[in-house]
């Protein structure tokens, strides 16, 4: 398993380099100009100087190599610096976002907690409610519970979050005044009251995303349970005189979870990607909003860095999912 993981990680290096090049080229070829959002009243000479200040006067391959050096050398060094208080990295060499004129990684770190809190919690909640729903739906296939579950997950999956989000805002924020419509990212949880406030403002975004996640995962869970419920070993377990609880939870569930765990693991990078739309709708302003605003502003270093991090996480979690599969399923061995 260890050698397998190491081998996979080694293979990931050229993959990631290739991905970074593709991202760079796509961004390079995409139309748009980082100064597009500057008003038309800015004269062309000034524009030209601003472009030069962003390094845009360099040829593309120089900028790509520079980015590689920044991402793989300067940024890790800076991380070491900030952890150990050393001074290896030259702060001038870090990846600088064009729109903020600030190190991109600093902003990413700043945004991470918001995204993990809201999108991560939503994912967790989604998984927590999806698994039992999937189990019951499969165990009582075609029962009213299963039918309602199927309907709800169809709705959750097919109705876009910008719709459910706005509906929730109009119902619960505008009409009922239960929850705020705008997420307060400056809120710090220090006591019970601020905790309640935080919980209140998280309710709607988490609900919207959790519904979406749960509908997806509960379908997987249900399908996997149905697969396993029909297996002979389940009959064996019943024939052994095991209680239904043991049969379902120990035999069926544990086997059904194998593919579901993989699906869940593969979904984790999307947490870091943030939920672009949901973050926008509720003004959570996490990584998703950071990415979309960077795209709008043609902030290429930020877009490149973020998308590359997502790509790296996807590659990593693919590996984790594979390794997990090996751990969970004794039939699979990586030697």
């Amino acid at each position: 398993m260890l050698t397998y993981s190491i081998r996979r990680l080694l293979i990931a290096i050229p993959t990631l380099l290739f991905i970074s090049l593709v991202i760079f080229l796509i961004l390079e070829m995409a139309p748009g100009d980082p100064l597009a959002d500057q008003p038309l009243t800015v004269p062309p000479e000034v524009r030209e100087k601003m472009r030069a200040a962003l390094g845009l006067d360099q040829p593309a391959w120089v900028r790509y190599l520079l980015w590689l050096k920044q991402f793989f050398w300067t940024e890790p060094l800076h991380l070491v610096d900030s952890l150990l208080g050393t001074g290896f990295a030259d702060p001038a060499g870090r990846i600088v976002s064009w729109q903020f004129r600030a190190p991109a990684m600093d902003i990413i770190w700043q945004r991470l907690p918001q995204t993990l809190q809201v999108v991560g919690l939503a994912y967790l909640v989604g998984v927590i409610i999806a698994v039992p729903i999937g189990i019951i739906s499969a165990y009582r296939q075609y029962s009213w519970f299963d039918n309602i579950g199927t309907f709800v997950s169809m709705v959750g999956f097919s109705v876009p979050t910008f719709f459910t989000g706005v509906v929730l805002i109009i119902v619960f924020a505008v009409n009922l005044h239960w929850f705020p419509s705008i997420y307060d990212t400056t809120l710090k949880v220090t006591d019970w009251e601020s905790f309640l406030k935080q919980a209140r403002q998280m309710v709607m975004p988490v609900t919207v995303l959790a519904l979406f996640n749960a509908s997806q995962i509960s379908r997987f869970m249900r399908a996997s349970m149905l697969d396993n419920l029909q297996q002979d070993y389940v009959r064996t377990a019943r024939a052994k005189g095991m209680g239904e609880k043991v049969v379902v939870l120990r035999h069926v569930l544990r086997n059904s979870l194998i593919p579901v765990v993989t699906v869940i693991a593969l979904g984790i990078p999307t947490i870091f990607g943030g939920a672009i739309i949901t973050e926008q709708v509720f003004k959570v302003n996490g990584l998703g909003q950071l990415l979309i605003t960077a795209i709008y502003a043609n902030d290429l270093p930020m877009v490149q860095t973020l998308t590359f991090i997502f790509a790296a996480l996807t590659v990593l979690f693919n590996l984790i999912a594979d390794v997990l599969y090996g751990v969970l399923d004794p039939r699979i061995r990586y030697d």
Partner: protein
Amino acid sequence: MLDTAPVRRKLVEVQGLRMYFPITAGLLRRKVGDVKAVDNVSFDIYEGETLGLVGESGCGKSTCGRVILRLYDPTGGSIRIEGREIADAAQSDLRDIRPTMQMVFQDPQASLNPRMTVAAIIGEPLDEHTTLSKAEKLARIYELMDAVGLNRNYANRYPHEFSGGQRQRIGIARALALNPKFVVCDEPIAALDVSIQAQVVNLLEELQDRLGLTYLFISHDLSMVRHIADRVAVMYLGKIVELAPRDDLYLRPLHPYTQALLSAVPEPDPELETQRRRIILKGDVPSPANPPKGCNFCTRCPKVMDICRTVDPAFREVEPGRFTACHLFSQSNETAGQTAAAEARQSIQQGV
């Protein structure tokens, strides 16, 4: 019967057993009919004997075995194990009787939980039904593994690491863990190589001798059944058409279906094989969802009579120890029956 043998105890008594699976259709999954997988089946199994249950695939023999162990909830009828009625007992009440009755499945691969080790698979029923200590359990697991001829060192391996024959041994060990009295062997050798089949069958026989087990041996392999069974029941389309002691049945089958079935068994002796006269049945087996009126076999029976198409023949004892459901042997048609029996005997003798 009374004077031929000491009174043997009936371990399993099945009366009028029916297992219908609903067919649903349409948007609202309305029930539109039933698949009559087991339809009014009655037989007894005596303690220590092996009852062979044979029939074509799809005839309901596996369902029958599973219903008897209450892996399905029967639609009707009565199942008594050691005199205790279990056909309508709740699953929770069945749990304390489960150790008495066990099952060996057809597919040893699929019937073993892939995420459990051999020790866990064999030991799980012990956790559930006994209060043995850990060490005692392990001892019992090893004992079982020895009994079925598995190396003790394999206790911590997973099922996928074994060959088919070894897996079936695990399945048998698992079934025996709780000292059952009655074991349903559901096509235990069908998925195995021919070379392994004999080993497993011999193991089953040996275990029967040693542990005094009672088997319901379900198989479509007539020669294997002939080898292992004491009595044989033949099923066709959810019903038992004939039930007889092994030798009687193989030598002198009464029911036209049994005759046809046996005529299909190849003879090991090439000379006899050339003389063997096969009875070729015409047409397909009717759908169990829509069985024909009258006798189930009437659509394909070479000796079909008018009555067969209207009246369902009763399953009754036509000779001591021999039961069949055929109008050829019904009381109103005694002579015809005799003739037919004679004919049948003749045809078999010609075959032999």
